[in-house]
């Protein structure tokens, strides 16, 4: 019995050693950094602005709405390094800044064009920031994002973290950027955003500033060289071999025939797959891009009978052509920027390492002349809830059938 008491007492004493007295941090001594923006001032200094989470202001589950509409608590500081900018921020914050829960870093265009490497160093070295921090590039000055008010989410960081859900841009976190920066034959790509004055949804209401996805920021090594358009996002992610998850991929596709009404349809692609295969064409390097997609037609703006197999086949053909045009446009943009955000070089490296070793040194000069052949195959599984859309009068279907059916 004595032994039992003695060991319990000993355990109780030992437990106190586990609390880590030196490193004890009380939650209310810490200020959580939610989002950071980095800009370059005209004098070439770093301007760091951070949004801190104000515990009282962030609505809990089922809490009162509208709290998120309060102006975000943003502090800014300047310095020659991110660290010294941080110091000048800390001069006005009564709590220790904590980076472990940071959700997003937004880089200004000027800073990104100078090269992001020196400014990311802090986030790659300091022990708190995580690899999952979303990285974005803002057209113009990144600090402008603070003027927008998130309506749906509690913090701006939460909005930016959900960036991949926005149509028209790609996900990229710190770890992605570092990985592509260090790899051969691929340049980093980051989501590009802008702050725009959105037309108010209700006519009388004042217009608001909104964060909008504007496409993909293309880098050369660690320097921003330009922005690829909205269609580029899916293409970039596809060729890199990653799926974009949450939002439906809606393609505007011409119908086989129209009769006075708008001959357009919307195809929603639900499954997408792509493969990149380097080959040789008449002794020159070429790349085959093989795409495969499955989708349904969710909208037709003219009467068309989707119960007919030949109509479906026509639609599959048209969808594939639309897709190939998107691919080709995006590649052309990237080639003119000399930024291989797709990782064609990396694809060659992975499949034909011997060949890559002869071309890796001047890949940047070769990339703009790269010949890419597209092979798209699309399967359309149907027309949604209706085959002959019930919105058109039967007479129009009959007239169309007389006129030769689904021929283009």
């Amino acid at each position: 019995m004595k032994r039992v008491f003695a060991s319990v007492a000993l355990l109780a004493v030992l437990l106190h050693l586990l609390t880590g007295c030196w490193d004890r941090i009380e939650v209310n001594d810490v200020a959580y950094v939610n989002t950071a923006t980095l800009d370059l001032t005209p004098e070439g200094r770093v301007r760091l602005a951070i949004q801190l989470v104000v515990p009282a202001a962030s609505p809990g589950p089922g809490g009162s709405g509208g709290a998120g509409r309060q102006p975000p608590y943003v502090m800014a500081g300047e310095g020659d390094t991110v660290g010294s900018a941080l110091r000048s921020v800390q001069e006005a914050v009564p709590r220790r800044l904590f980076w472990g829960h940071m959700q997003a870093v937004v880089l200004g265009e000027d800073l990104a064009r100078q090269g992001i490497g020196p400014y990311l160093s802090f986030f790659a070295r300091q022990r708190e920031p995580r690899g999952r921090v979303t990285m974005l590039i803002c057209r113009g000055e990144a600090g402008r994002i603070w003027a927008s008010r998130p309506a749906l989410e509690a913090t701006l960081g939460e909005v930016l973290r959900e960036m991949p859900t926005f149509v028209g841009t790609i996900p990229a976190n710190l770890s992605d950027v570092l990985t592509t920066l260090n790899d051969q034959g691929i340049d980093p790509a980051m989501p590009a955003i802008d702050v725009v004055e959105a037309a108010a949804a209700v006519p009388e209401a004042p217009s608001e500033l909104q964060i909008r996805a504007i496409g993909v920021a293309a880098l050369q090594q660690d320097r921003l060289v330009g922005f690829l358009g909205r269609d580029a996002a899916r293409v970039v992610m596809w060729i890199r071999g990653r799926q974009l998850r949450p939002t439906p991929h809606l393609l505007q596709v011409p119908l086989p025939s129209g009769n006075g009404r708008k001959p357009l349809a919307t195809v929603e692609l639900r499954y997408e797959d792509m493969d990149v295969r380097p080959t040789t064409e008449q002794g020159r390097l070429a790349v085959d891009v093989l795409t495969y997609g499955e989708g349904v037609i969710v909208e037709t703006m003219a009467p068309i009978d989707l119960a007919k197999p030949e109509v479906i086949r026509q639609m599959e053909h048209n969808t594939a052509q639309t897709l190939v045009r998107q691919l080709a446009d995006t590649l052309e943009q990237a080639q003119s920027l000399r930024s291989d955000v797709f990782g064609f070089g990396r694809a060659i490296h992975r499949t034909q390492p011997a060949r890559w070793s002869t071309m890796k040194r001047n890949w940047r000069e070769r990339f703009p002349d790269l010949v890419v052949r597209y092979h798209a195959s699309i399967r359309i599984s149907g027309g949604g809830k209706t085959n002959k859309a019930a919105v058109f009068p039967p007479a129009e279907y009959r007239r169309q059938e007389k006129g030769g059916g689904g021929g283009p």
Partner: protein
Amino acid sequence: MNEQVSPIQLFLLALPVVNATAVLFVPGLVGTTAGRDGWMAPILAPVVVLILIAIFRPMLRRWPQRTFIEVGREALGPWVGGALGILFAGWCLHTAAVVLREFGEVLSSTMLPLTPLTVILLLQVVAVAWISRNGLSALGRCAEIMIPINNVFIVIILLLATRDADFRHLQPVLEHGPGPVLRASIIPVAWFGELVLIAFLWPRLKQPRKGPVALAYACIWIVLVLSFGSAMAQANFGPVVPRLSLPTLVVARMISIGDFLERIEPLLIIVWVADNFVKLSVFHYVTCETIRQSLNLGRASVLAFPAAALMLVLAVAMFEHVTQMSDWLAHVLPLYAPFVEVGVPLICIGAGLLVGDRRSLGSR
């Protein structure tokens, strides 16, 4: 003296001797040398264990209940044999001090930056001395409780990390031929060589001949974990791996399942503390035992706390900072460790076998 551990306990003791530190350090080191083929490097490393088994097998057959220190002392006499034993004990203590310092550096750079290093080390050292004072059977029980849980945690962490893994980062395979992989496999050899401590413990089994089998199974599991860990680091971070100080920890930090299962790296730190506790205890127990046997002392347990104090002082004083330690680990340790790990048992057992017939060592 005999029958202090079971083969399963010995198997469990062998795992942390390599994996406690290797899981965190090896992926980065092999990634630096062999790039994306780093995951192959651990596969070749157990060759050193085969060499150890080849050296120890004749001894197990003739004197199943004696350690190579005892055999060496009787064959070479108290002066030469004892000196070899002390050399071995010195290596043991020295390596344990380095491991202890690694343990502390990782904790203070990731979780406890403000806590003085000495305090972190002291807490571990007290526990280690205590368990080693209580003997091998207590240590075996500890391993039975901790090591299975630790390994489950590690496997879970690595499996969860497959969500973001892109195994195309492992391509092209063997771009620069087998040379870099072979060079990289020397790195884990340093760790596998430490399994000589487990070979030292074979005579403590009821059937010492089951020792090599238990060690072989342990090697298979160690190789699987190290290979998988290196592959996961590579699949998650590709070309960045050589730039990371502790890739496995960063892999754990990247895990995010459904936006709620996140920030699970404290699990890895728990594994780190517990695994290192067992590893250090094995080292410390063998240190005390070899000193006892070399000097022909009565009990090893009286040595536990003095040796632990020595280990602590060495760990604190040996390096000024972590860069110095890494440099030493990369450039000095490989030059001397294998000679002690393999050389001392080879001399002791070889001498025993040569002299053994004349002096009939086995008659005990």
